[in-house]
């Protein structure tokens, strides 16, 4: 789920990115090809019907399975429903309108989940983008076999979160690979014990657990920012580096003064995308632990359905909260991209 949405947004940013860098060229090309109709297109009713016919299937599926559920999510969030029969409105059933919202609002696990979202989002975003940048930098020097590494590093992105979670559970488990490795290496063991490690250490337990889960996400997903950043680096005009080298700037200075400023927009865009989509994480967390202290908002929403006989309304209320935060993040993304474009336009 995550990976395809990520690609979706990248597509958008990639476009914006390209348009900014090669402004006039692209715009002219679009103007030439966007409205090819002209003399050959017959106006009128028949043309309108054709357009409608082309749009109808997509609009129908999205209307029924995406837009209608949004509205229904609001009505269900103020209802009592057990997953069968007809949902009953709370006020008609001896309750008050926002009882579901009140219940989840007063539930400490909601706030634990949101806090965990924050930890997961921060760590995994900084980790994937930071590591992605370093990896892209390493491949950018066109090291021998870079095409192979680019492909190999991207491979885990295509794995199912479930598989990754089950594999890493075997690593983090109290008698898992990590604990066994530490116990097997004497100097590592004494070093770890200095940090508070004990035999059969519980890695997947709050507060450390969330960071451990974020590490899994970094392990799986760094290949994605690497790919995007690498293609942005390839767009930097070589003359810039040439000029810097003539001025006597070393490799590290060139990275700091040319590479980073040149791809700043891409870095910000990819970081925002990671924020938006790590907010939605579910599979990884749910499949690796069912500890209430280590859930995120999506898995909290899923697990809260089992709170009592008719708890689907609670889950819908969490869904509404999730929709709101998701839209806020997306609007923030659009806002930042627009601001950047405006800055470019005035520059």
């Amino acid at each position, binding site marked *: 789920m995550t*990976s395809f949405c990520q690609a979706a947004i990248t597509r958008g940013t990639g476009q914006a990115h390209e348009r900014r860098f090669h402004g006039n060229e692209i715009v002219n090309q679009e103007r030439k090809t*966007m409205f*090819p109709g002209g003399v050959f297109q017959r106006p009128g009713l028949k043309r309108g019907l054709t357009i409608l016919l082309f*749009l109808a*299937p997509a609009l129908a*599926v999205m209307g029924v399975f995406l837009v209608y559920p949004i509205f*229904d999510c609001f009505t269900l969030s103020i209802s009592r429903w057990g997953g069968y029969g007809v949902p009953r409105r709370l006020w008609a059933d001896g309750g008050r309108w926002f009882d579901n919202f009140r219940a989840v609002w007063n539930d400490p696990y909601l706030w634990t989940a949101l806090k965990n979202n924050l930890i997961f989002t921060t760590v995994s975003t900084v980790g994937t983008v930071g590591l992605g940048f370093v990896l892209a930098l390493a491949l950018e020097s066109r090291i021998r076999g870079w095409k192979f590494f680019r492909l190999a590093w991207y491979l885990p992105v295509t794995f199912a979160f479930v598989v990754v979670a089950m594999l890493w559970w*075997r690593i983090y488990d109290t008698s898992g690979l990590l604990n066994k490795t530490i116990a097997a290496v004497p100097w590592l063991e004494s070093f770890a014990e200095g940090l508070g490690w004990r035999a059969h250490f519980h890695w997947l337990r709050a507060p450390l657990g969330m960071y451990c889960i974020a590490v899994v996400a970094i392990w799986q997903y760094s290949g994605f920012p690497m790919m995007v950043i690498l293609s942005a680096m390839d767009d930097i005009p070589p003359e810039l580096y040439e000029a810097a080298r003539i001025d006597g700037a070393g490799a590290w200075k060139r990275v700091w003064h040319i590479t980073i400023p040149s791809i700043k927009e891409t870095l910000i865009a990819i970081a925002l995308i990671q924020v938006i989509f790590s907010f939605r994480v579910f599979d990884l967390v749910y499949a690796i632990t069912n500890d209430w202290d280590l859930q995120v908002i999506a898995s909290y929403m899923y697990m809260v359905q089992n709170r009592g006989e008719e708890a689907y309304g609670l889950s819908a209320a969490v869904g509404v909260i999730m929709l709101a935060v*998701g839209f806020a993040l997306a609007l923030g993304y659009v806002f930042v991209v627009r601001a950047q474009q405006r800055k470019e336009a005035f520059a």
Partner: protein
Amino acid sequence: MSGGSVMNKAARGAGLRSARLAAALAVITWTSVLFYPLVFMLSGSLKSGPELTSRPWGLPRGIVLQNYAEGFLTPGLDTNMARLMLNSAIVTAGTVVLVGLFSAMAAYALARYEWTLRSFMLSCFALAVAIPGQALIVPLYRLILNLGLKDSYWALILPYTAASLPFSVVMLRAYFVGFPRELEEAARIDGCGEFGMFFRIFLPLSRGGLAVICTVAAIGAWNELMLAMTFITDPARRTLSAALVQYSGNSQTSPNEPVLFAILCMATAPIVLLFVFFQRHVLKGATVGGVKG
């Protein structure tokens, strides 16, 4: 992309030795960190239970293919791996076909015709990309129940399609916009109608773009967990991801680790094969903004 790399190479062929060394070091380190867990998984699937407990690190001493045979029958799930993969494949294929066809049609209307609400409609599609689909699980569940779709493949195919469409439409539209107008004019002069134009000219020519969105939709549909666990409870129709979570829940109480590793390897193998087969398109999907023709 390749043009840029050649120039970069020329510009920095004489790059500092220390920088090259650091790059090589980073590449080696990350490749080992990334692949060690996978080696652990693969070698674990070939070990015997006691060996995996006592020596989890290295390669297996004797290969135990029995794990795969046992894992194939997915103990405790009333089904087998082939069935689970078939279920996932049906759901994935259905999603891919619908997403490909519907998004291509919508993108065509948005790219090749000029009409009043066109830009508004385009903004709607772009905005819909921001909807976190899983937040809608409760209303979707009610909808699936009311439509009588529970435990059918459609219960997953239709929501997955709806969730993939916004992004696919936005992306394919950008693809269509780039087609030269001469192509369309030539086809019209040859007497091509509106639908002939779409099916005979645009669909065949947009294979690259279609491959990207279909791969991306396929990865999403193959992996999805939350809806798959909720909308399908019939063991014979469960998808692979949902069954794996159930299996892992069972096996954490009575674990047979090597068998579980074998199951994980079997679940990953088709994806790896597809990835290697379609690598060009997947990579393109990830970096499409940076690729210039």
